[in-house]
């Protein structure tokens, strides 16, 4: 079977940018800035981008293209190609398939809410909710957490889930060039355009209530950008900035490895990686930083901002923004633009989460794309059901912790050490620059070899002690939620084991084939 390829540089950059630009750019980033020192947060944020984000981007693009040269699109084969003598490194690579699957299980469901809400915005279905409490009740009714006058059950949410799930499957079925590339080539410009339209509208808000002149957009921008210098003394702020960079660039999941594996040996990775990162930063700092927080400040004022910023991404996206937008002229259209923007950001990310598992089945088990996609859809459909029906029981938090936090940092640490120390910095640097359109400054050799791994080990250690151990030890989980959380954890262990066995089987088969060929 001939390997799939991107049609060109723009295609792969759009696909990686589409993967990186997600809900976090528009919802998580502004909340983080507002809570962690405003403008001062940008200092550790940019330092993390230079020392952690860009090196990881280049590492993943290079490993991906290198592994693709050996016919591997996923981390087990790539890691094995880089360290052939080690029998166990391929099992570390399982994280690069496991992580995306786990995130996919809840991400597609959340993405389906955005599709639903974009239609609700157009039809004015949530217009009766004039307060935060009303909008929260609408959301909880939709999620099936409570039965109320808005929704009597999960039926509507499930319908939108089925549509979104099918859309993801169709895109994956059409392949790298015909599906993923095509969706991202149109999707990324459209989502940037929608975001620009909304930013312009927010900037034109001025002072919505003349009786409260201090509640205006400029002060809203001040809320997000005025620096609180004392925040820089807090290690938590520095770690929050590193975390934001880490999560926003789609690094450490394995999806960039898979996307880069469809490049040719002499296609550029240095400039392409930088361009994808720059597009993501444009969407995050410039567009994401100018939407929710300034608009919320202009409407609700300084007193309400602390609780809004702390309220989390779902409240910002599904409660605060629709409340604001429905107060404007053509509010239905702006509401539709907001949710459609997030839906496109979501689907261009979720297809990237699906591709590693599909590629693994195709590469390592010689399955056709059709069969691989069908197996992937059947498995993820079944595994998503607990996230849908036990949403309020801690299932999604558990999935997010392992797939979206813990294994991300572990995986990034392993691949960085593998790249810089096992593969070797000289080979790594040469590989990174093969066919390159730019020359990366030489001091990045030092950064990639010493600074990035140390940075990652520090983050790993700090988060493990401060944040992760309590979650691992199930601290704070209520007795009623415990069976659901434990069940999810058991399911994840089983999924990981199944993937490890599949890797083992695949390598055995490959070895047998080689021996038969030699005989």
């Amino acid at each position, binding site marked *: 079977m001939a390997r799939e390829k991107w049609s060109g540089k723009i295609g792969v*950059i759009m696909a990686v940018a589409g993967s990186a630009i997600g809900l976090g750019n528009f919802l998580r980033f502004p909340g983080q800035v507002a809570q962690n020192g405003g403008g*001062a947060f940008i200092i550790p944020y940019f330092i993390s981008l230079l020392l952690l984000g860009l090196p990881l981007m280049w590492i993943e693009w290079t490993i991906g293209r290198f592994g693709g040269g050996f016919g591997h699109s996923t981390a087990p084969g790539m890691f094995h190609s880089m360290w052939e003598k080690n029998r166990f490194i391929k099992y570390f690579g399982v994280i690069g398939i496991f992580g995306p699957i786990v995130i996919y299980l809840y991400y597609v469901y959340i993405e389906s809410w955005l599709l639903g809400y974009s239609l609700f915005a157009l039809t004015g279905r949530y217009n009766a909710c004039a307060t935060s409490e009303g909008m929260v009740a609408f959301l909880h009714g939709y999620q099936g957490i409570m039965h109320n006058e808005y929704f009597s059950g999960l039926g509507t949410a499930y319908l939108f889930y089925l549509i979104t799930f099918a859309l993801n499957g169709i895109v994956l079925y059409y392949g790298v060039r015909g599906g993923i590339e095509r969706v991202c080539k149109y999707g990324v410009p459209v989502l940037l355009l929608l975001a620009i339209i909304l930013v312009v509208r927010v900037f034109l808000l001025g002072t919505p209530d003349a009786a409260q002149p201090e509640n205006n957009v*400029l002060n809203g921008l*001040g809320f997000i*950008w*005025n620096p609180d210098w004392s925040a820089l003394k807090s290690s938590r702020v520095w770690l929050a900035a590193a975390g934001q960079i880490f999560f926003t660039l789609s690094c450490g999941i394995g999806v960039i490895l898979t996307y880069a594996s469809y490049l040719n040996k002499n296609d550029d990775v240095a400039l*392409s990686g930088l361009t994808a990162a*720059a*597009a993501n930063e444009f969407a995050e700092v410039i567009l994401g930083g100018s939407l929710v927080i300034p608009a919320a400040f202009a409407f609700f004022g300084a007193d309400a901002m602390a609780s809004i910023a702390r309220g989390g991404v779902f409240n910002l996206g599904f409660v605060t923004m629709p409340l604001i937008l429905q107060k404007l002229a053509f509010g239905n259209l702006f509401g539709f633009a907001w949710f459609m923007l997030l839906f496109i950001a979501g689907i261009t990310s979720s297809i990237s989460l699906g591709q590693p598992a599909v590629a693994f089945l195709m590469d390592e088990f010689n399955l056709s794309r059709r069969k691989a996609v069908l197996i992937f859809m059947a498995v993820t459909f079944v595994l998503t059901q607990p996230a849908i029906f036990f949403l309020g029981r801690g299932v999604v938090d558990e999935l997010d912790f392992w797939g979206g936090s813990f294994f991300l940092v572990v995986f990034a640490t392993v691949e960085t050490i593998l790249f810089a120390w096992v593969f070797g910095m000289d080979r790594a640097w040469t590989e990174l620059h093969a066919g390159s359109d730019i020359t990366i400054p030489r001091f990045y050799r030092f950064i990639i070899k010493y600074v990035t791994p140390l940075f990652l080990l520090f983050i790993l250690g700090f988060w493990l002690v401060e944040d992760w151990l309590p979650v691992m030890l199930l601290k704070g989980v209520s007795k009623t939620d415990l069976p659901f959380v434990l069940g999810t954890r058991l399911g994840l262990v089983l999924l990981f084991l199944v993937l490890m066995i599949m890797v083992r089987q695949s390598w055995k088969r490959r070895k047998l084939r080689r021996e038969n060929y030699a005989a």
Partner: protein
Amino acid sequence: MLLSGWLFMGLSWGAILTLFVYCLIRTLGPRK
């Protein structure tokens, strides 16, 4: 918004826009 806020916003936007435009020009332009 304070002057320092404007400064941070201006510098951040300037840095990102410069990088983004540079990357676009290099990516879309002829390969050296």
